[in-house]
């Protein structure tokens, strides 16, 4: 940047060139000093509470340390934990449960959220108020709300079973959403969809509103059918927004812990045991600190790697 025409650039250059001591005497702190003074505390806090612990986790993942026996001798075990985790069928089962949960919630939330956004974009009377109402669930505590859903899912007395059997007939105590091996994965998906569809809807709505009217008007002049307009204008132009919503939901649900922990605790058996629950059991119930540290590293690397690949794809779509 050789642009010195704006005063800010001049000031920046002047400030950068002035020694800090002189600058302080002349006109308070220099810009450079201010910049570092302002940014450093945040970086230090993150180094202390995020990065230092992360490095420690990586170290622990190579040892047999156990948090409940702090005085026992710590031995270096190399890559043993990693080898064991990657060949452990229980871990792969947990990854499958997580993948099932992440994929189904994303598919349902995206379809439902996008459809809702299309409808809200019709700007019917009172759409602002109803949009706000729809958005309420996503701001609530997943733990506290998840806990209450266990009550709605009670077989005999719960509202959910009552409403379902009201429409389908049958006995409300004939099925258990949380106690049944085939139903419980769907029980957590239903609550997640209830909470987070509005999230996808809000981002999709922003996408739809970003499409300029003149494109549709041009398509109309060309006599494009509604179906054609939808697939050739609406979807491609809203796609970066949809992909962004999928990215955020994917990361969040990959990490999912609170809601599932309260709804099913991973049960029955391990049918809803998502990766975070497996990790919690290993780390805070069996106290296998070394093993769980290795698992934590693997999870973090997976999220980070997948997110990075995805962001590259997202940028490519944006540039089109």
């Amino acid at each position: 940047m050789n642009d010195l025409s704006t005063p800010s650039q001049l000031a920046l250059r002047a400030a950068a060139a002035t020694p800090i001591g002189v600058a302080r005497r002349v006109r308070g702190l220099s810009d450079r000093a201010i910049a570092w003074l302002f940014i450093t505390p945040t970086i230090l806090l993150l180094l202390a509470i995020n990065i230092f612990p992360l490095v420690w986790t990586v170290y622990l993942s190579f040892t047999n340390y156990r948090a409940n026996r702090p005085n026992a001798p710590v031995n270096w075990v190399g890559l043993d934990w990693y080898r064991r985790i990657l060949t452990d069928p229980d871990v792969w089962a947990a990854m499958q449960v997580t993948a099932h949960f992440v994929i189904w919630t994303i598919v349902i939330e995206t379809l439902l959220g996008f459809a809702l956004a299309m409808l809200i974009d019709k700007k019917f009377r009172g759409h602002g108020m109803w949009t706000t109402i729809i958005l309420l669930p996503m701001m609530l505590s997943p733990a506290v709300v998840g806990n209450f859903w266990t009550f709605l899912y009670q077989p005999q007395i719960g509202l959910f079973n009552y409403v379902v059997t009201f429409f389908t007939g049958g006995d409300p105590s004939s099925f258990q959403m949380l106690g049944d091996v085939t139903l419980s994965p769907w029980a957590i998906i239903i609550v997640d969809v209830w909470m987070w569809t509005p999230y996808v809807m809000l981002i999709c709505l922003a996408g739809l509103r970003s499409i300029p009217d003149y494109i549709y008007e041009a398509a109309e002049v060309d006599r494009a059918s509604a179906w054609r307009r939808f697939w050739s204008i609406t979807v491609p132009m809203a796609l970066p927004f949809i992909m962004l919503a999928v990215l955020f939901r994917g990361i969040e649900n990959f990490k999912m812990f609170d809601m599932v922990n309260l709804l099913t605790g991973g049960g029955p058996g391990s049918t809803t045991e998502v990766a975070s629950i497996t990790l919690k059991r290993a780390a805070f119930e069996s106290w296998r600190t070394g093993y769980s540290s290795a698992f934590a590293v693997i999870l973090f690397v997976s999220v980070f790697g997948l997110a990075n690949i995805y962001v590259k794809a997202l940028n490519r779509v944006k540039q089109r």
Partner: protein
Amino acid sequence: MSAANTAHSVVEPTPAGRRFAGAIVILYAVITMIPLLWIGLTSLKSPQDSISYPPKLVFTPTVEGYCNLFTTRTRQTPEFIQSLGPPQGMCEEEARSRNMVIAGPSNYIPRFVNSLIIAFGSTVLAVGLGTLAAYGFSRFRVPLKDDLLFFILSTRMMPPIAVAIPIYLMYRELGLSDTRLGMILLYTSVNVSLAVWLLKGFIDEIPREYEEAALIDGYTRFQAFVKVVLPQAATGIAATAIFCLIFAWNEYAFAVLLTSGTAQTAPPFIPIIIGEGGQDWPAVAAGTTIFLVPILVFTILLRRHLLRGITFGAVRK
């Protein structure tokens, strides 16, 4: 709107299409509200009404759930209760009608207070640090700026349980286990990434010319920041603060793993409210209602900034 006159314009939907869209959206909104309304209704039911079949929509409201939430009670003989003086307050009266005497306040109150202290403490710190850092990133050429910003964001990608393992060990060494200060620092570190990203967006939108004018008038950079930028960014700072507040208020994973008593917040406590013979659902519902209402109010206040907040500022309008 001239387009409204041409009935079949693609940009303006037809009135019938609009009504149809409205009907579906309202139906969806009503369905999503049912669980929330059910929480509110259950909090006003007696334990018997709350577990009746079919679920009761019409019932005699009672404050029993709220009383059970805030107090602990012991069962006494009718003779002993007769010997006591007149009951003081609704809850006392209500408890005595069931041969109970209020023994003292419940643990919900200190848990709620912990939630307040930790949420507000971490919000003030996160927004304070975040505003400074966001201004630094917005206005100055910082080496490796993009890398630093991405680093700040990436700290949010870690699963909380993965972070909790070393934090648990670190806090045990430092004596921060189960302390409010420990939780405040932890939530600050989680929230500061959101605060930096959101506030950088807000500060980017304030024209630099304002500060430059102030600098020419003889303000120092710091004075310009305090007297020009901060007032301009007030709305953004308030919106960011509410997002941080809501996160810290709702957080469960760290709270349940790292606190057990003195610093425990409400989210890990509400699920373990137990009454006589099983879960006391009206009390749980009462605790949930009190816990959720502030967030409902904040969400409505925040509705214009929601999109920005939930996408870390990636989508602005």
